[in-house]
């Protein structure tokens, strides 16, 4: 493996790993706050048990998210020193604000996890909410840093020099809002479906059905609402990409030729050499309409992008299809859930209904990883869109492939241990929280 590919793979691996834990760390505190709120209001011990069981899981995820994030903050320099040397002062502002948000999150987490029966119950509840809010804020801030790489602003690039740097302008770059919105919703959808799926499985297995049923109900509401908003925000993102990164949009759509009345290409196998897509469903004019509200508008294709500035088409296209496809599936599930909620309450105990959600457990996270692949691979060969190439940014140190193998082994074993711990956590629910032997 060549060192440059190794560096990119290591970055992708570390981010792909971190994002899972980060999302759970951002979203679970809200689920806990709801369960905790019901406990304080109703004094039903099942709610207290749900809060406690979840908070144990969150502590594990939080610690893993924190260490993988710490690794990332060093990795930016270890892998891309040349990028950081120039970009650090420009796009670093959100990172330093994020430091504050993390700090507050870590402090609040200390209060929340260790504060049972020590503080006023509502203060204790509030610290849980603070964990969630500061988690979301830090997520938004990092995404603002990432969106700067897609739409660099806040400096003048003159003869290889970065002048007139304005970090505030860089932070509020044109893409930050679209990306932060889409990402925040995605984290709720992904975590919501994952949590709901696990509890649905336990209901089917008839283990502590009341406990798992109540937990399922909390998670699924967040998941369903997010899944309905997701395509809307995705549409906003796509329009934005069309304006700021036409090459990325063309790669997402495998759109080789600039034309009016562009068709929307669904699925298919892109062939970069022949500049064609095979076996795709094409809906005439829809791409033009979706990006510019006009069936006749012209959409830039890859033919307008010099060969050396083109992103890898196949990966970007497939990843985009996966994200949108899963997004539609999740939308369907969400609508089905609301239908059941208002019209067919009895479905909630039907095993076919629950099984659907069990199957959906990983879908959100798969869509999330696919979405990041679209964003990051679709920006290639640039690390800073139109300004610096990824190849110019990489570290001069040879042998990065060994570091990549090492980190792959570490993250792989860590994932296995976390899954193992989670499995034990869920298995113990019946022993630790068996109140009144429900069902």
């Amino acid at each position: 493996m060549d060192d440059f590919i190794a560096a990119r793979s290591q970055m992708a691996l570390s981010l792909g790993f971190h994002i899972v834990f980060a999302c759970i760390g951002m979203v679970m505190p809200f689920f806990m706050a709801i369960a905790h709120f019901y406990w304080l209001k109703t004094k039903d011990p099942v709610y207290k048990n749900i809060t406690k069981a979840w908070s144990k899981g969150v502590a594990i995820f939080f610690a893993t998210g924190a260490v993988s994030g710490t690794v990332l903050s060093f990795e930016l320099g270890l892998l891309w020193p040349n990028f950081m040397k120039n970009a650090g002062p420009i796009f670093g502002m959100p990172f330093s604000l994020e430091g504050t948000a993390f700090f507050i999150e870590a402090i609040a987490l200390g209060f929340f996890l260790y504060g049972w029966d020590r503080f006023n119950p509502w203060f204790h509840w509030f610290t849980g909410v603070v964990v969630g809010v500061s988690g979301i804020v830090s997520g938004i801030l990092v995404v603002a840093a990432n969106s700067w790489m897609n739409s660099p602003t806040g400096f003048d690039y003159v003869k290889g020099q970065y002048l007139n740097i304005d970090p505030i302008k860089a932070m509020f770059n044109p893409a930050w809002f679209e990306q932060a919105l889409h990402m925040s919703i995605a984290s709720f959808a992904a975590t919501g479906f994952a949590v709901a799926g696990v509890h649905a499985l336990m209901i089917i297995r008839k283990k502590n059905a009341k406990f798992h049923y109540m937990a399922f109900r909390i998670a699924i509401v967040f998941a369903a609402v997010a899944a309905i908003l997701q395509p809307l925000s995705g549409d906003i993102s796509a329009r934005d990409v069309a304006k700021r990164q036409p090459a990325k949009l063309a790669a997402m759509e495998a759109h080789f030729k600039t034309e009016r009345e562009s068709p929307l290409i669904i699925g298919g196998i892109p062939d970069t050499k022949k500049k064609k897509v095979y076996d795709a469903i094409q809906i005439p004019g829809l791409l033009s309409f979706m990006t510019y509200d006009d069936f006749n508008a012209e959409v830039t294709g890859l033919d307008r992008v010099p060969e050396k500035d083109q992103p890898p088409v196949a990966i970007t296209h497939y990843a985009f299809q996966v994200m949108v496809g899963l997004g539609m599936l999740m939308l369907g599930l969400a609508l089905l859930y609301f239908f059941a909620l208002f019209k067919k309450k009895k479905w909630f105990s039907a095993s076919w209904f629950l099984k659907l959600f069990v199957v959906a457990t990983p879908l959100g996270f798969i869509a999330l990883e696919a979405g990041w692949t679209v964003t990051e691979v679709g920006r290639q060969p640039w690390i800073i869109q139109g300004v610096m190439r990824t190849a110019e940014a990489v570290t001069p140190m040879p042998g990065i492939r060994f570091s990549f193998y090492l980190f792959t082994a570490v993250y792989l074993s860590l994932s296995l241990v976390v899954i193992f711990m989670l499995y034990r956590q869920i298995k113990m629910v019946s022993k630790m929280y068996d109140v009144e032997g429900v069902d």
Partner: protein
Amino acid sequence: MLYVVIVFLWVALLLYLLLGGADFGAGIIELFTSEDNKAKARKTMYHAIGPIWEANHMWLIIAIVFLFVGFPVIYSTMSIYLHIPLVIMLLGIIARGTAFAFRNYDAVVDNMQKLYNKIFVYSSFVTPLFLGIIAGSAVSGKIDVHATTFLSAFIFSWLNLFSVAIGFFTVALCGYTAAIYLVGETNDPAERRRFVRKALQMNIAAVVFGALVFISAGADNIPLAQWVFGNPVGIAAVAAATLSLIVLWYLIYKGRARMLRLLAGFQVTMILLTTTYKHYPNIVLLKNGEYLSLIENKGADKTIEALGWALLIGSLFILPALIYLIYSFQRKD
């Protein structure tokens, strides 16, 4: 504003050395505690550091983020030439952070605990060792930006007597602060005595490794003695640290736990002050007498300005919350 940022950078470093250091030290103490007493020591430690665990390690992230936002050239130079020790330190951070969470939150308590404990104690040793090595390498003058071979660019930049001696000195210092801190966290006289003994051993280890640092500095042609004793601030700080040792041992026999902590914290502060004062603002020394100065390598003015304000406003939120956290979970006697 530049000075606000620099002061914060120093304070973040100090707090990481103190709080994160005591945290590492707890693992080091556990490593050197006999099998029979391990379980008890672990319990005391868990109560002491559990709630502030995450917050203790934020200081490192804060420092690193300041560095890449405010002083990007320094960050990227260190990242390139100290790649290997940084990776080892990161592996230590991963292992330690996850093992700590696993051993406290695993729903089933069985043989896996043994594994978590092993990972925790060894990584508690390795992480500060390499942190020390990295810090030592920054000032050792062995980083060679004109190097032509892999060995001289990426290995000898950090693998030298001086840096390694600083690494071990850091480990001893962490163990020492942890032991002093833990003395105040237990009511059991036998355990208290054990922590006092650990504090003494770590204190001796620190003195021995401190001497080694000076000897290896001599061997590596680093004018350390001149940095430390060549200016009044250095002499005063060393004298204060040494004198306070006497007071410290007096307080231990009197059992004044809270005063003890303040004093140990004071000593660590003095040590960091002596080692950084003479260098400032050149925090990375390169081969051939070149150096990277904080002042000359600062980022864009607007960035430093914004960073300074972010720090001032951010600490308005963080410090009271942090102090309340530490206060709330102190053992009340």
